[in-house]
């Protein structure tokens, strides 16, 4: 190869490398919006690809007065960044000139250029190029490229570096826009949060004031009456009612605050448990489960609490029918749609129902739906409400489906198990699972001899006192486990006072169920 060919080959290789570098910067600037990451990468690419001594990126500060160094190659870059190196726009420096005039400036011999700033950190610089970063009419900064050789920049270098600088300018502008957007968004969020807190606080203050007043005024009247020895029963009732409402706030708002203990649970059974706890007749609620609907990943007690609040609202809205449809939904969730034919609500109430202390009903705290929202949010779920006046209300809840993990059968030898439960989907699951684990299992509401009695707390077709009396007669109280999706303190007390100390969370997987046996 002749020396001329060799030179041509080297030039072609360098051109290819520069184009690759320009492409690389182009790709980076479209993908990186964080300037702290983008700018150091850019100076490294420039120096590594072109073999230059130094490159740095300056950005115009907020005052528009200075170009401040934001990234610099190597130790000189680090030292200047640490010193807060900046150059005044329009000043006697290559960067000052390029940002002031919005034009590139090239000093092929720095000693001969009046605008070159003698930088003590870069003593070996012999030629320098300053490229303004311009977007439309605006200068956002400048790039400096420096070489230890005189006349280091070819026309090709200038062209590719200016292209690179133009792309960089767009990226910097985008990053600034994003930051402004984020700032505006944060301001808006802060304003909205403050507005919501103010609204909620003012509702709470109003509510507490209204509940406190009957107590303080009634106490004053009772004090005045004390001398005469007469007691106004109505005053006592007023105090009792106010106290009851305050306790309801504590139980509804503070109850769901504890962290959910989630596990795979059967959504339809939680609806049954909620209906039972609210005291609904079984016939009023129709539960329809789409084939293939998985369990949900939920804290059964918390979810029953949320469902109870929704069902209570339906009853108080004079619903004659409640239809619950449970089906698989998108994104690995399960949808529960609870539709009633009750009074419905006006459009202006629909957005307010999620705020605490908002209620259209007398003697209400307006905490039912806010508490349900709190529970659903804690489960990474969503909840929405649609309502038409005089037609009814539909509440839709989406809860993550349970992970379909292996649930092994645990066997401790065959036992005679009596399952005291209604004929419902959970009972079918329990019968099949316990039989598969080798137990002899019978479902009945009439008590008979057994090694173990599994008694569902939610019995629509039998009276609990009768069942307990039969268990006592058969001497089975000590062998009985009460199964509850949402045990309450009152239930624990009731069973314990009747000789049954074992109240367990109702199992919904084979492993949980067979562990009880």
């Amino acid at each position, binding site marked *: 190869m002749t020396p001329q060919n060799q030179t041509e080959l080297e030039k072609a290789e360098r051109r290819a490398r520069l184009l690759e570098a320009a492409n690389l910067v182009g790709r980076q600037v479209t993908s990186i919006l964080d300037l702290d990451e983008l700018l150091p990468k850019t100076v490294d690419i420039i120096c590594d690809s072109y073999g230059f001594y130094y490159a740095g990126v300056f950005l115009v500060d907020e005052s528009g007065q200075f170009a401040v160094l934001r990234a610099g190659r190597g130790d000189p870059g680090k030292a200047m960044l640490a010193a807060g190196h900046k150059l005044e726009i329009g000043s006697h420096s290559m960067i000052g000139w390029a940002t002031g005039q919005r034009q590139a400036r090239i000093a092929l011999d720095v000693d001969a250029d009046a605008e070159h700033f003698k930088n003590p950190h870069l003593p070996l610089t012999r030629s320098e190029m300053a490229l303004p970063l311009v977007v439309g009419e605006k200068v956002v900064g400048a790039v400096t490229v420096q070489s230890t050789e005189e006349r280091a920049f070819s026309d090709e270098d200038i062209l590719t570096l200016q292209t690179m600088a133009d792309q960089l300018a767009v990226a910097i502008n985008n990053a600034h826009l994003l930051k402004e957007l984020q700032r505006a968004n944060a301001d808006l969020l802060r304003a909205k949060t403050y507005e919501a807190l103010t609204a909620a606080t003012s509702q709470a203050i109003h509510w507490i004031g209204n509940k406190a007043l009957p107590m303080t005024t009634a106490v004053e009247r009772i004090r005045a009456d004390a001398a005469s020895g007469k007691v106004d029963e109505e005053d006592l009732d007023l105090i009792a009612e106010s106290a009851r409402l305050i306790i309801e706030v504590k139980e509804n708002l503070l109850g769901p605050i504890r962290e959910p203990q989630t596990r795979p649970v059967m959504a339809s059974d939680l609806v049954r448990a909620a209906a039972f706890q609210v005291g609904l007749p079984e016939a009023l609620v129709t539960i329809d489960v789409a084939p293939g609907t998985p369990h949900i990943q939920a804290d059964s007690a918390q979810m029953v609490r949320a469902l109870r609040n929704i069902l209570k609202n339906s009853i108080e809205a004079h619903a004659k029918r409640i239809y619950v449809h449970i089906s698989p939904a998108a994104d690995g969730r399960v949808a529960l749609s609870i539709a009633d034919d009750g009074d419905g609500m006006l459009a202006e109430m629909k957005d307010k129902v999620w705020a605490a202390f908002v209620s259209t009903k007398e003697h209400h705290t307006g905490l039912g739906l806010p508490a349900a929202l709190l529970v659903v949010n804690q489960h990474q779920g969503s909840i929405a409400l649609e309502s038409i006046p005089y037609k009814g209300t539909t509440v839709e809840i989406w809860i993550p489906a349970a992970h379909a993990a292996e649930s092994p059968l645990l066997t401790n030898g065959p036992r005679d198990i009596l399952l005291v439960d209604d004929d419902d989907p959970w009972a079918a699951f329990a019968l099949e699972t316990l039989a598969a684990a080798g137990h002899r299992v019978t479902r009945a509401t009439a008590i008979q001899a057994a090694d173990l009695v599994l008694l569902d707390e939610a019995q629509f077709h039998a009276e609990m006192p009768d069942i307990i009396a039969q268990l006592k007669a058969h001497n089975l109280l000590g062998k009985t486990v009460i199964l509850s999706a949402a045990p309450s*303190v009152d239930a624990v007390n009731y069973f314990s006072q009747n000789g049954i100390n074992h109240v367990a969370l109702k199992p919904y997987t084979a492993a949980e169920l067979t562990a009880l046996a």
Partner: protein
Amino acid sequence: MPKILIVDDEAIVARSMQKTLLRAGYAVETAPGCDQGWQALNDSQDFDLVLLDLNMPGFGGTPAEDAGLDMLERIHETWPDLPVLILSAYDDPTRASEAANRGARGFNVKGREQNVLEQIQSILSGGQ
């Protein structure tokens, strides 16, 4: 006259329950934490029933959420026949089960304690 010990660090609650029980004809003492309650039980040895809070200063004086359960256990070990009722702000069935397993005769939630007197009367008259 049957004698009852109330252990609760909330003075207004202890006083209010004391008034209710005094009116019902019981002798009532109060203690603001486990140490004082334990001291009272050991000093007099003639209490007929204990009404225990859960979240209060525990043994050693440090406030603990379940201090009352520790005291319940210690009472049950020392005087197995001394009836203990829990009166707590926690509406928590898990704690209620735990209390039942440690020998409590009942678990009452503050604000819904209206039948505590009835329970006490029933226990002290030899019922459940």
